[in-house]
């Protein structure tokens, strides 16, 4: 099996791929990026927490016109994963408003986004309809 690398460092690969966040130990605010401090309370002590792999679509758009080289259409969404908001594409679903709806239940899924010259696969993530 080819070596794999996650598209972003907050995607944890393995048998049960999931997202992880930096959680402020003082106030509980969660962030996906490298932190200098907490934007909510200003403290700077964080712990890693796993994010639920299922969620609900709170907002979406179907992008039909994008920057050069970005394939369209794609569905971009805000997914509420058990109280933590996540930005992701909706995948494995027809990109039209008949198949994508507000409030739909989704789960995390991974996909290969490319292979580099060392045969390492980059693995991205999206959310797909749950039980669809």
């Amino acid at each position: 099996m080819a070596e794999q690398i996650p598209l972003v460092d907050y995607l944890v690969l393995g048998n049960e791929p999931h997202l992880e966040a930096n959680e402020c130990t003082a106030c509980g605010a969660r962030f996906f990026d490298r932190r200098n401090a907490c934007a909510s309370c200003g403290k700077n002590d964080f712990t890693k927490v796993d994010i639920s792999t299922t969620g609900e679509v709170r907002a979406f758009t179907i992008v039909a016109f994008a920057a050069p080289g970005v394939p369209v259409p794609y569905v971009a969404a805000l997914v509420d994963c058990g109280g933590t908001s996540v930005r992701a594409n909706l995948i494995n679903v027809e990109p039209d408003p008949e198949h994508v709806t507000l409030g739909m239940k989704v789960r995390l899924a991974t996909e290969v986004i490319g292979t580099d010259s060392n045969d390492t696969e980059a693995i991205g993530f999206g959310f797909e309809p749950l039980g669809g």
Partner: protein
Amino acid sequence: MTSASDELWILGIHMTKFGKHPDMDLVDLASEAVSGALADGGVEMKDMGVIGAGNLMAANAGIGQQLQKQLGQTGIPVYNVANACATGATALRVAAMAVKAGECDMGLAFGVEKLSGAGLLSGGSRKDDGGTWSPSGRYGAVAPVDGRIGTEIMPGVFAQIGMEYGHKYGGTSFELFARISEKNHSHSTLNPLAAYTKKMSLEEIMGDIMIAYPNTRPMCSANCDGAAAAVVVSGAKLKTLSLEQQRRAVKISASILTTDPWEESCQILPDVNTLTRNAANQAYEQAGVGPEDLNLVELHDCFATAELVHYDNLMLCEVGGAVDFFNSGATWRDGKTPVNVSGGLESKGHPIAATGIANVWEVATHLRGEAGDRQIQGAKVGLTHVIGLGSACGVHILEKSAA
């Protein structure tokens, strides 16, 4: 040095026609707006004590000093500002703060942008990835994430903002958002300074090119060239000027700038709601007026999906009531609270740094009773709103002179 001022007034204000100006550069456009504002106020560059200069796309070029090189190098302080789509409002805030603080009794603010043909203003283009994966940036990304992890393009970001409102309160649809755009395009037919003045039917809007569902092309703000400028004067100084200047002066009852306070999802999808509501609350308190007192509102309809949420954020309607409010006809020019009678960003156009002063020009022109065919009769109080992602929100409340 003068003393701190309790009152701020717009003495002169001007905007260029928005649209394509291929033969004018940034300095030409800014000069036209500034010369117009000075002439409108009956003052000259030598009367100015400060300049707030706004330009976003060439923010490192010192547009304020470039303007001075053409219109007058009087040695006064220039503050070149860039604050996303709130750049114009920020420039106005700079002039207002200087006058308010008593550092001078008159200040100039302008905003200028050249954007004709600019296309999408955000979103990363993607080349052949090639090479080997190497994590970089704050997310340790090995490849561009725009289009792979959600979207960075503005029409898509603001589409989600409108959809999120729909999810929370219900009642939204592609057609509803298109009807908001229909209103603004209809309003634009009366505005000779708008970039686009063509009435569009609901069918034309919904059938146009889809950019990011539910925003089609005419539901997006129009990239164009333009500039706007304003002269701010203290209340004390205004009393020394002519009766005609006093009569045409427009009172700045509130001038507010906010940023986005931390909210759970604000670093996932920009929260344009909380900072707008905060700015509106502060503005109503500062001005001593309420939303029910407003005769017209120019708000930041960068996309049709954005206009809806700002009805609620500016408290023009009850919490959660934006859809019903729009469907009641309230925001059409003959409604209870006319919104974007200029045509809004969707048809008047959105030369970014000019927008936050051009909307003040629109409201001021109605308060002066000088808006011609599109005059809102008897207008006494108006509100302007801009928001720049990142985020910054500017709100101004303006009142007609009693003189």
